[in-house]
């Protein structure tokens, strides 16, 4: 029977299947961070259980870590206690940890691919919803809760039901200045925050095939923002080239065996998806959000919508609440929205390619005098690479702040937060109320729009800068 890519990966990991029960799915890689794991380790201890496969488990510190003064103890005692708990737990159970200051430290979804631990055809889980990022390699990767973290630690498996299959086809050439972030924001605006619920999304089509691994990670990362279980992309030469030579990638004869297997990881020609979505890449423009969920986005050429124009009562009410929270008036041109802060970073857009795109736009220029720009590399390795390329100087010379690696202002668990009423253009993944700080207002944007916005202080497309 013809299968989709996701079905192939799923079926290859079924340990046990029985009528009337969920399948038991084997997990190839379990990524762990400080926030969603302490109660899971406590659960193991309380039940006298151990970690079944420490060698298939990798931990890092990312959510709480400060991005300034990173070699000193964390000032916030509650954050410090949580990070200390992770250090104790990983030491007790023999799990590898990349702590603050380590060359491998960084956002959990940046370091997995960087180390070559993320490979095609794997099942990967983490107590973090953006685990879908790893789907860019043709892995089935999804976020789990703390009870499931405990379950995976104890058994290296998870009870699962096979998800439904959705194809998102993106065909044609992306116009200049339009990036993977704009593609995924457009997808979410089209299908809604619940549109992917119950599905695994496979992103396909000529526009997807041309994307770099970094860009593919950006797209898969935000699958959860469309409500999907996971998102993935078939591995190809771009994937293999990215992986070859990375620390944990197979070598020699193993590499050949791996590539032979990975090359079979494609949706069969006559496989049937439960749902299909089509996006014309040539029609896309830079996309920005105006509301308080990631589905409330529009092309930057548009204006803030009028809630009265929404046919559905729930959508209308949501738009009214969003405009009130965001301090926006219907009809305001999106380009006229003034921001206080620009955040470049996160597991969505904190990789080297994202920093390069932004730096290119900022090179030799100064950001707007009233705007603060925070540049937070996704990992220590991304930071080091950027510094080798001189990107840190470009950001600093432009007046931006160059910080240490971590999740930072994506969710404000460290001191990097918006103040009440402050407005950001952010390359992160969620514009939820208060996500970046109590009372903070977030507009989700691509790295190119973030850089252009930093230069003008208002939401700006990179193309607007030409001749400006």
């Amino acid at each position, binding site marked *: 029977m013809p299968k989709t890519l996701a079905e192939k990966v799923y079926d290859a990991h079924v340990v046990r299947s029985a009528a009337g029960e969920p399948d038991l799915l084997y997990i190839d890689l379990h990524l762990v961070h400080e926030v969603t794991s302490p109660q899971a380790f406590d659960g193991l201890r309380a039940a006298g259980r151990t970690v079944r496969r420490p060698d298939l488990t990798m931990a890092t510190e990312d959510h709480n870590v400060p991005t300034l003064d990173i070699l000193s103890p964390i000032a916030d005692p509650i954050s410090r206690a949580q990070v200390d708990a992770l250090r104790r737990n990983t030491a007790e159970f023999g799990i590898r940890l990349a702590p603050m200051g380590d060359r491998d430290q960084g956002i959990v979804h940046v370091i997995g691919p960087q180390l070559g631990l993320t490979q095609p055809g*794997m099942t990967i889980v983490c107590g973090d919803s953006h685990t879908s990022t790893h789907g860019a390699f043709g892995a089935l990767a999804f*976020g789990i809760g703390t009870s499931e973290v405990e379950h995976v630690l104890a058994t290296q*498996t998870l009870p699962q039901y096979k998800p439904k299959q959705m194809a998102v086809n993106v065909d044609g050439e992306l116009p200049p200045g339009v990036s993977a972030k704009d593609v995924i924001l457009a997808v979410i605006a089209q299908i809604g925050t619940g549109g992917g619920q119950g599905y695994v999304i496979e992103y396909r089509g000529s526009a997807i095939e041309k994307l770099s691994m970094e860009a593919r990670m950006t797209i898969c990362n935000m699958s959860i923002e469309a409500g999907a279980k996971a998102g993935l992309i078939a591995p190809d030469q771009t994937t293999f080239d990215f992986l070859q030579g990375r620390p944990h990638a197979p070598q020699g004869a193993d590499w050949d065996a791996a590539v032979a297997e990975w090359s079979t990881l494609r949706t069969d020609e006559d496989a049937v998806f439960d749902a299909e979505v089509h996006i014309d890449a040539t029609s896309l423009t830079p996309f920005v959000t105006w509301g308080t969920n990631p589905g409330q986005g529009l092309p930057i050429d548009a204006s803030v919508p009028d809630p009265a124009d929404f046919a559905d009562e729930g959508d209308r009410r949501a738009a009214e609440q969003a405009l009130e929270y965001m301090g926006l008036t219907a009809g305001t041109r999106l380009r006229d929205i003034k921001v206080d802060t620009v955040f470049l970073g996160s597991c969505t857009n904190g990789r080297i390619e994202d920093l390069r795109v932004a730096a290119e736009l900022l090179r030799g220029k100064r950001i707007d005098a009233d705007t603060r720009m925070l540049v937070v590399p996704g990992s220590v390795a991304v930071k080091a690479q950027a510094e080798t390329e001189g990107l840190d100087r470009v950001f600093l010379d432009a007046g931006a702040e160059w910080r240490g690696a971590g999740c930072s202002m994506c969710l404000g668990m460290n001191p990097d937060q918006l103040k009440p009423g402050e407005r950001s253009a952010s390359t992160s993944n969620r514009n939820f109320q208060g996500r970046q700080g109590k009372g903070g207002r977030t507009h989700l944007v691509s790295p190119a729009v973030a850089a252009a916005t930093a230069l003008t202080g208002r939401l700006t497309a990179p193309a607007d800068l030409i001749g400006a």
Partner: protein
Amino acid sequence: MDAFTTHTGTAAPLRRTNVDTDQIIPAEYLKRITRTGFEDGLFVAWRTNEPDFVLNRPEYANASILVAGPDFGTGSSREHANWALLDGGFRVVISPRFADIFRNNSTKAGLLTVVLPEADVEALWAAIEADPALPVTVDLQAEQVTYGDVTVPFQIDPYTRWRLLEGLDDVGLTERHLDDIQAFEDARPAWKPKALPAV
């Protein structure tokens, strides 16, 4: 996990869509390493900033059933959201559509999520707004929600229902199949990546 069979209580109407887990409990409350005591973070921004917020109103202060609009529990995978709802006195959340991870976490934490069509949620909203003291019964055994003279059936997958009714721990159930897990591991290709030793 506590078993869930049937629950009767009063219900609070949360007329909002896309209630994300950052609203249920903001990230700053996630720094704690305990599994209980999260009630102070439950909907804290709305409780603080909106005097008319439904859970600030005395007639809904003791509600144990939350009735919300579609796409409840979107966003972050934080199980703290489920714990906060339980700590805040809720045993059931009713919505036309839940985010997958939230719903899955609920089945582990012993919080029952009930999916009802939008029209039934609207009718329930109207009833509990008209009479906030109206008792609402959610019967997992019979798979139905009852209030006044209205009975609405709901569906839940039989396995999850059984686990909730019995209050069973997933890890214990999986440990019955350790032989299968071992056999699967023995057949895995040797080149599959390992995090240890560090390279």
